């Protein structure tokens, strides 16, 4: 929704270049290659209050460091007098762009300016106008699924069930979300995988077999992976496209992707839908594995250097898998998708990738509550999302 508003707004604005004609938009200001693994020092001039705060947060999330003018390689000058105006130059004054924003509110406009700065500097679209799903705990047995801007603003509840929930996940086209609920039916709170339409709010039961039903993850081809214990132990199952739980209450058309006594968890598809990755245990050792979408052997994804991986999340560009390593505390780690040396990027857990395959949003445990945080993977810079009323965890980055 926010994105639509902004797109309309951007179309209608006058996009003026500083020193018209002197440079293509952002053309000579690109920060590429190795330099993208270091923080880009950038100064904000003329912005105050909320807009300044939004710009700082956004730019620092996306690999910049907001510094005094004297230390900056780039400068964003502008103001917010009813609408946000911003101009990007390098230190020497070479122009990038100069734009006025309309539509949405000032926060939305500031996010759009941040995105333009990152697009101009790196050639990669920014993620400042995206949204995230997460779980929020409001009481001892009261958790709901929430949606907010990626920075935690404008949180809205997607459920109002006053029960437990787990692991909200987007469908690949972001039109639906999947989550696990403990809604009471037939006298017990048997776990249930729910699919919820983001436009209409309509909900459909995707699995409610005896025992555990969780982990709903949809592939681009429409295969739905879930963790079910109907076979006597938590195992990974895949339902074919168009499959309806209500028409297959015995699960005869489900395909079991593994048969183990172990605690499989955290199913995630490769972005091309060819592989399914999850966490399991073999010979006493917890590990990440992948299985071809059409079935086959589990293939280990080595995560050398760290222990007890769980909660894998495959990056949108297909190159990396983020996961949580448990070694006393929890660490958010990244490993090449084929496996290899795992890189610890932040203290925390339950990471999911942003659409840019560069940022991860994750959970960090505090004294009394859990809160969300974002890490810029190459620079390992962490930004904490201000705490909500309740305890927030299990974020899922949308678009």
């Amino acid at each position, binding site marked *: 929704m926010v994105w639509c508003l902004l797109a309309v707004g951007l179309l209608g604005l006058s996009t003026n270049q500083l020193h018209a004609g002197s440079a293509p938009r952002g053309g000579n200001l690109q920060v590429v290659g190795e330099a993208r693994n270091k923080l880009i020092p950038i100064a904000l001039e003329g912005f105050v209050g909320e807009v300044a705060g939004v710009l700082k947060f956004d730019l620092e999330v996306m690999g910049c460091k907001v510094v005094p003018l004297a230390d900056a390689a780039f400068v964003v000058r502008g103001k917010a007098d009813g609408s946000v105006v911003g101009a990007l130059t390098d230190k020497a004054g070479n122009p990038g762009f100069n734009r006025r924003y309309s539509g949405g509110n000032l926060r939305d406009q500031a996010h759009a300016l941040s995105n333009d700065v990152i697009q101009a500097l790196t050639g990669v679209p920014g993620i400042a106008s995206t949204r995230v799903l997460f779980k929020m705990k409001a009481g001892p047995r009261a958790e709901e699924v929430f949606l907010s801007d990626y920075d935690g603003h404008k949180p809205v509840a*997607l459920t109002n069930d006053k029960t437990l929930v787990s692991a909200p996940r987007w469908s690949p086209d972001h039109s639906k979300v999947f989550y696990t609920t403990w809604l009471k039916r037939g*006298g017990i709170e048997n776990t249930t995988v729910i699919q919820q339409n983001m436009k209409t709010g309509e909900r459909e039961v995707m699995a409610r077999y005896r*025992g555990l039903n*969780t982990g709903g993850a949809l592939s681009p081809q429409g295969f739905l992976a879930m963790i079910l214990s109907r076979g*006597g132990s938590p195992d990974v199952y895949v339902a074919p496209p168009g499959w309806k739980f209500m028409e297959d*209450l015995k699960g005869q058309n489900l395909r079991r992707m593994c*048969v183990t006594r172990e*605690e499989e968890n955290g199913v995630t598809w490769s972005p091309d839908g060819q592989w399914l990755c999850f966490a399991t245990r073999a010979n006493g050792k917890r590990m990440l594995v992948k299985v071809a979408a059409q079935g086959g052997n589990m293939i280990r994804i080595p995560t050398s250097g760290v222990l007890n991986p769980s909660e894998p999340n495959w990056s949108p560009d297909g190159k990396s898998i983020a996961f949580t390593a448990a070694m006393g505390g929890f660490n958010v780690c990244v490993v090449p998708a084929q496996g290899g040396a795992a890189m610890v990027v932040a203290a925390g857990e339950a990471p999911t990738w942003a659409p840019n395959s560069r940022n991860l949003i994750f959970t960090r445990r505090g004294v009394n509550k859990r809160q969300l945080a974002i890490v810029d993977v190459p620079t390992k810079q962490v930004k904490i999302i201000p705490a909500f009323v309740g305890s927030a965890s299990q974020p899922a980055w949308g678009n």
Partner: protein
Amino acid sequence: MRGELYIKAVACAALLGIVGMGCKSNDNAGLTSIPSFAGSGNNSGGGNPNIGPGNGNDTGGLPRGNPNGNGPKTTGTNVGGTDNGDPNTPLTIPENFQEQRDIFERVHFDYDSSELRPGDQDLVAQVAQHLIQNPQHMLLVEGHCDERGTEEYNLSLGERRALTVAEELVRLGVSADRLGTQSLGEKVPLSEADSKAARAQNRRGEFVLFMPMTGVVELPQK
């Protein structure tokens, strides 16, 4: 204890780092391959006893969620059913049954383990005896974890714990039809203290008994 586990794990990881992890497809105890969708049984199995009107145990509608957060609406989708004989169907509790928690002592688990402790075998045997003597009664086994695992891992671990207890009950002669399992992961700790004792208390299996509201119940002797 924790340190010991950590060291063991490190040693194990070091070994694996050298050898690599062989995922043996022919090892039943290890990782297994799966048949494909094609040709998987499509038999309808006759009339489905689990859904439809007139079901005395209608499980209720599923309220609609909030579309982008705009107020809840309600629609009716019946899920589940009453066929407790079908291992696919969640245990369904008749409406005239009451829930009894804390009748039976809890069992506990070691860190990161779903093995039944030898000392807890007797507790499970008491539950089995009760269920055998009271054939109408039904039981939900809840599996809980401490907060040292990740949330998704704990959800599966809690289920594995509950299943281990349920397996033992079946082994002792209880019909699986009357048993359900439910994981709560780390969501419902008994103690929120940050201590070894609190964590040990939280790694547990709980027995939730369902019995008809009327009638005398003979509770097990402790």
